[in-house]
């Protein structure tokens, strides 16, 4: 039901773009106003969310560790799994961001009923890790490839990404490897939510919607490249106009392009309000980005109130004369 609703929402969005461009001729709205609006909402929302997170104190050292803590010199410390230095944390975060290290440790739990009663067993579960890795890296390369529409002249790294991605030279224009990987991975991530009962149970509409959005963006993009071809030169003129702040609407770009663009805009505008914010959130995960130096450094709770203390020093200053008269020993004469 949740999946169906999300799917319908995406279909409605596609219809809106199709009707808006083909019937109502709102090219200006769909080609210029909505993209700018989406960009502003994305940047504004993203910055707002991150700054809001930044205002939450993290009073305790709460890194989750899975290695030997720094201890006596003859006990070997796990310097990355249980970091006490900045370098350790940087390596740990990098492996998290680039290779999804904690997802690599994903396990599955099963209750198996055997001859001698039920038995709880744990096993490694790498498929989610593989799927996510393929998905995210393909996504990144696809975004880099798209820079060819936004940059003129096209920088070398974009051309390289493009030619490596299309190196198999199957068909014309050549099929991009990342297109295939991306579609496979996103299908896997979707099927996983439908097929595994436990995952299905915890999946919300907010999980399905971005998946369907991303899937339809990929499919519309692939359709545009491999089937309903459009005038790429006109598309680049539109894209360059947007980033040069002199927007133009070239004539003769097919509706499929506006569908693709509209879905991307909606995804970007939706981004800061959704689970997709894990893009920024991963950097701010206290269980990952903190050093485990609980006992090496004194950590003071940032919301401790300012208290006035009356120390013994002050006490003595106040009563020194009286103390001397009464014969009580004082520290300072």
């Amino acid at each position, binding site marked *: 039901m949740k999946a169906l609703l999300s799917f319908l929402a995406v279909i409605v969005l596609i219809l809106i773009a199709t009707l808006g461009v083909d019937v109502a001729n709102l090219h200006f709205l769909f080609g210029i106003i909505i993209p700018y609006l989406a960009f502003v909402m994305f*940047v504004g929302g*993203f*910055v707002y969310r*991150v*700054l809001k997170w*930044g*205002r*939450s*104190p*993290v009073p305790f050292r709460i890194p989750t560790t899975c290695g030997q803590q720094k201890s006596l010199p003859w006990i070997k410390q796990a310097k990355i799994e249980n970091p006490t230095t900045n370098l350790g944390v940087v390596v740990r975060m990098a492996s998290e961001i680039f290779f999804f290290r904690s997802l690599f440790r994903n396990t599955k739990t099963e209750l198996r009923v055997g001859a001698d009663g039920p038995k709880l067993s744990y096993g490694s579960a790498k498929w989610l890790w593989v799927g996510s890795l393929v998905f995210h890296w393909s996504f990144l390369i696809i975004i880099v490839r798209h*820079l*060819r529409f*936004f*940059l*003129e*002249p*096209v920088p070398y790294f*974009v*051309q390289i990404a*493009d*030619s490596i991605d299309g190196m198999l*030279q199957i068909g*014309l*224009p*050549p099929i991009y490897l990342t297109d295939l990987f991306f579609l496979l991975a996103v299908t896997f991530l979707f099927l996983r939510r439908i097929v595994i009962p436990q995952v299905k149970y915890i999946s919300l509409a907010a999980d399905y919607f971005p998946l369907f959005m991303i899937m339809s963006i990929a499919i519309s993009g692939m359709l545009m490249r491999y089937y309903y*071809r*459009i*005038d*790429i*030169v006109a598309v*680049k*003129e539109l894209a*360059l*106009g947007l*980033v*040069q*702040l*002199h927007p*133009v609407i070239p004539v*003769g770009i*097919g509706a499929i392009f506006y569908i693709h663009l509209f879905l991307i805009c909606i995804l970007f505008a939706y981004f800061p309000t959704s689970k997709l914010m894990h893009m*920024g959130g991963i*950097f*701010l995960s206290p269980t990952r980005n903190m050093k485990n130096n609980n006992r090496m450094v004194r950590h003071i709770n*940032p919301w401790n109130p300012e208290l006035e203390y009356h120390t013994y020093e002050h006490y003595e200053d106040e009563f020194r004369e009286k103390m001397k008269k009464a014969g009580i020993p004082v520290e300072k004469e």
Partner: protein
Amino acid sequence: MYKGGKIIVGLVIFLAFLTFPFFYNMGKANAGPENLDANLKQAADSQCVEPADYMRNNHMQLLNQWRQAYVRDGLTEYTNSQGKTFEINIDTCTKCHSTGAASNTSGVSNPAVNEVGVSNPAVNTSDQFCVSCHDYASVKPTCWSCHSEPGGATK
């Protein structure tokens, strides 16, 4: 804010990535590739192999089809959607979209290679017709991985 410095540095880097295209293209004119029509040697009302709109979007497909027809099926003529026939040859293209003054008399003129202002169609004064759009869209035609480039012998 806690750890404000680091968070703001992170956000600034993020924004730098996002706004990179805005700064990269700042102050440049949004000059598309040269207008192909300006290079046409034929009268303006003559039609291309297929209608211009179709050609603009699908010329690669047609060239692929031509290669298949010529190399594998041994056909030398192509009949278009209006029943008109054309010789399957790159010369059919260059007859109109050609390379004018720069045309190479000793052999095939080279529509896809341009020695002048290669990566910058804005300053490209050549009338060579593949290259300006293909550079602009960063699409490398694979023609020259089989066909020898004109002037290739001197390389």
